[in-house]
């Protein structure tokens, strides 16, 4: 088999050296009850590269790739153009086939890139320190809540209703086992987030308040106001961002007083990938909180000759040293996705990121203007970055999304998909627009949406 270098002669020679008469001798400690003879049934035998490639291509061919269709999905996962050189970098065997940098003398490549990554994330978020990545935005969100309870020694977390529902669910899942109390709400369908309602829920037992920026409906909020309210009660402000590109145009959460900023990084370098692997970003504004952070941290130091170098540091927070007292159980994180993110960010730089953000916003404004003109469509948002909420007349948005898909347009994410069974939300459609969206795509969406909405109002469908 093409991945197995031992020959039968090798195997014989090695068994002889070991003093075993057959390979079965090496499995003597397996109890009889668990012995199998022959390869496990019901599974195919080995196959050539060509045969496997055919099989996988057939499966891939059954999916509608975003690149081949007008595409407007967001809701926590954004499609951006990833420069070709990003793949060159992450495909370097020295990065791809390395492990966590436990031996820093021969892992400076990974370590220096992580140090650069941490710096980029911290600056993007307006924070002091970022870690070397977590699994994704949603788990980072839980880690932030858990950290806030450690820092404040309080158990109650207030979640904004406009936090991505999957993120809220992850937090609630964890909290049901660990005793945190999670106060949450459904998003109110209003042109602007209602901060009063949110801040009124903060009390003396509140460890943190968790707000998404821009939120699940695409609306920005005045984080300063929430920060003040939280800090007044001794609580921390946790801000979640699912679209890092937004921060190329919009004030950072750190600048506005967030204590912990977490987010999803897939938008840069990583791609859609049907939801994973993604990239959890985690940063704190106050360097004093560093020792409460979850995950790996890369730090600068010097070698025995005085040359600058990098190492994983503060590992006494981590499971492999601290075991049950660790700040998190995370081990393998999203190293290669961090590399993709940092490479993309390096290509962008301050200038490119700002341009990218501006271009996203420009096209989103165009799309909002155009789509609002479709009869039966209303734009909810007063403000947005590259994603906004449309209110649709007629049948639930979830069905409209399916109708659009039948016409070859991936028109957005319905709130019905995100909040199944919640009637109040079922006519809302989230539409995301990025630099990959063309003006033709916008026109196609507008006309197909119009067709779908009109058709629906006919007694006999035209088709």
């Amino acid at each position: 088999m093409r991945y197995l270098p031992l020959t039968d002669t090798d195997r014989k020679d090695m068994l002889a050296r070991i003093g075993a008469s057959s390979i079965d001798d090496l499995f003597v400690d397996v109890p009889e009850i668990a012995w199998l003879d022959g390869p496990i049934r019901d599974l195919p035998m080995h196959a050539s590269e060509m045969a496997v490639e055919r099989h996988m291509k057939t499966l891939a061919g059954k999916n509608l790739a975003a690149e081949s269709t007008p595409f407007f999905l967001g809701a926590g996962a954004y499609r951006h153009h990833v420069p070709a050189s990003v793949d060159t970098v992450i495909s370097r065997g020295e990065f791809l086939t390395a492990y966590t940098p436990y031996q820093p003398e021969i892992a400076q490549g990974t370590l220096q890139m992580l140090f650069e990554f941490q710096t980029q994330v911290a600056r993007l978020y307006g924070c002091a320190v970022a870690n070397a990545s977590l699994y994704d935005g949603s788990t980072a969100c839980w880690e932030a809540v858990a950290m806030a309870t450690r820092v404040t020694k309080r158990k109650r977390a207030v979640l904004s209703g406009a936090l991505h529902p999957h993120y809220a669910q992850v937090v609630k899942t964890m909290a049901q086992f660990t005793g945190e109390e999670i106060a949450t709400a459904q998003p109110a369908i209003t042109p602007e987030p209602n901060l009063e309602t949110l801040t009124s829920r903060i009390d003396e037992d509140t460890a943190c308040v968790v707000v998404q920026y821009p939120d699940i409906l695409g609306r920005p909020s005045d984080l300063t106001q929430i920060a003040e309210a939280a800090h007044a009660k001794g609580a921390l402000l946790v801000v979640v961002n699912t679209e890092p590109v937004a921060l190329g145009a919009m004030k950072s959460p750190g600048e506005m007083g967030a204590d912990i900023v977490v987010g999803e990084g897939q938008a840069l370098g990583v791609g859609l990938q049907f939801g994973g692997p993604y990239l959890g970003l985690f940063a704190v504004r106050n360097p004093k909180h560093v020792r409460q952070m979850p995950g790996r941290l890369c730090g600068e130091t010097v070698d025995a000759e005085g040359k600058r170098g990098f190492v994983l540091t503060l590992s006494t927070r981590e499971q492999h040293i601290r075991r049950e007292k660790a700040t998190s159980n995370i081990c393998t994180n999203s190293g290669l996705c961090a590399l993709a993110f940092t490479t993309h960010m390096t290509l962008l730089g301050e200038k490119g990121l700002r341009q990218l953000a501006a271009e996203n916003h420009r096209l989103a404004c165009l799309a909002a203007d155009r789509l609002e003109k479709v009869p039966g469509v209303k734009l909810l948002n007063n403000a947005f970055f590259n994603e906004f909420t449309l209110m649709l007349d007629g049948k639930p948005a979830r069905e409209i999304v399916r109708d659009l898909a039948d016409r070859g347009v991936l028109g957005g994410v319905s709130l019905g998909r995100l909040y199944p069974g919640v009637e109040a939300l079922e006519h809302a459609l989230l539409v995301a627009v990025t630099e990959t969206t063309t003006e033709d795509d916008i026109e196609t969406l507008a006309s197909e949406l119009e067709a779908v909405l009109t058709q629906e109002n006919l007694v006999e469908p035209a088709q």
Partner: protein
Amino acid sequence: MNAPNKSGWKPSMEVADASGEMVTTTGNRALMLEEPLIFEIGKAETTGVDLPEVDPAMPNRMGGYDREEPIGLVGLTEPETVRHYTRLSRQNYGIDLGFFPLGSCTMKHNPRLNEKMARLPGFADIHPLAPQSSVQGALEVVDQLATWLKTLTGMPAVAMSPKAGAHGELCGILAIRAAHTAAGNPREVVLVPESAHGTNPATAAFAGYKVDNIPATPEGRVDVDALIERLGPDVAAVMITNPNTCGLFEKDFRTIADAVHDVGGYVYCDGANFNAIVGRVRPGDLGVDAMHINLHKTFSTPHGGGGPGSGPVVFSEALAPFAPLPYVEKDAEGELRIVEEETTDADHQTFGRMTAFHGQMGMFTRALTYMLSHGADGLKQVAEDAVLNANYILRSLEDILHAPFADSGPCMHEALFGDKDFGGGLSTLDLAKGLIDEGYHPMTVYFPLVVHGAMLVEPTETESKASIDQFITAFRHVTERALAGDEALKQAPYFAPRRRLDETAAARKPKLAWEEPTE
């Protein structure tokens, strides 16, 4: 790029050759190249993309939250970017470069077909919330992979969404907790052997359990008597790694499992070492209730310098109803669909959602490609060759190194040694650094904790005999130096991009982000 005096390299630190005659001003040594930080070579106004200039007159509907202060990022053009990361990469060791026997981490070859398949737009360029009719092929990948995992482990159910091994552990323990809770009492304690990986106790604690340690026997296995002794109605679960982190098969696993089940507890198996038995042994036959599988170990998805991984969890009948959302199932018409909503029948008492979307799709495509490539016959051979290679190493080094469990029977996929008898104050660490100079990535050191100065060597099945033979020669050589107390070893590595790094200084005054030097 590479502005003089910008990297950590100071002009005064010239490099001298062996003869002391040749020095370089750049700090470079031919193909071993120094590289500054992006912040030292990049510029705020430089970019490696071509986008329209920002037009301040353009409509702005961001609600007044414009970012006015500089972000503090720098850019590089594409040539500079490719060079920066290429130079950095060359300071790294990877499987592609040589033998990487990092015990417990299973650094096997990452087949390139996997990489190619994962990049097909039909897999890489689809949105997790795309209408399900438009992603049936992706759901088939999930479904086929799930079938392989269930069949290989002999377990009836699998949760695909966990993002890595530790996340899988969490998934398993949360299901156990949910099952106990559903039965009226979550219980308090999870038993974990001393030799367990740090994620085991950390996970149990993260899920709200108290952790009790179980001792190991002198032969390197779980002390069954001590464990059974400790069992009681407070014990929610035991977490046992099998094959264990000493590289041994837990012979009495079934006995333990039965005893745990007798007191109403559940058996969590850490399946990080499944690669030793895949295709030969089905954990389902041993009484396991939940087990995570590191696709990035057994099923060859790349580690990428620290992730991403993927940690699907197989479940017994008892735990299956508690599996997390979302999951993929076939509907009446044979169409695959993602179940995202809680339902409340007896078969579906999900403990909830662990992560935003459906799991590590990019790893699923790679793992499935790997499984199809090997097939059932190849996977069995994988386990056998991995075990053969490890035993070969064990028996080739046991005469010279302390091999504490050499008499405990054959090892599985890894060989464990200890540091006894080293001379001159030399340690496991010194030996490891000596191996770096010889062109190897060191084995895992100081883990598991049950062996003093532990050295855990995992060759995997993708190493040739010639490669292992050369490693044995080099390892014996460095060991001889350690036994002889060779002082020079204390300073190793000599030839790596950096000499030993000061970890204490790093932790004492952490410098975790770059700052503009104040001059």
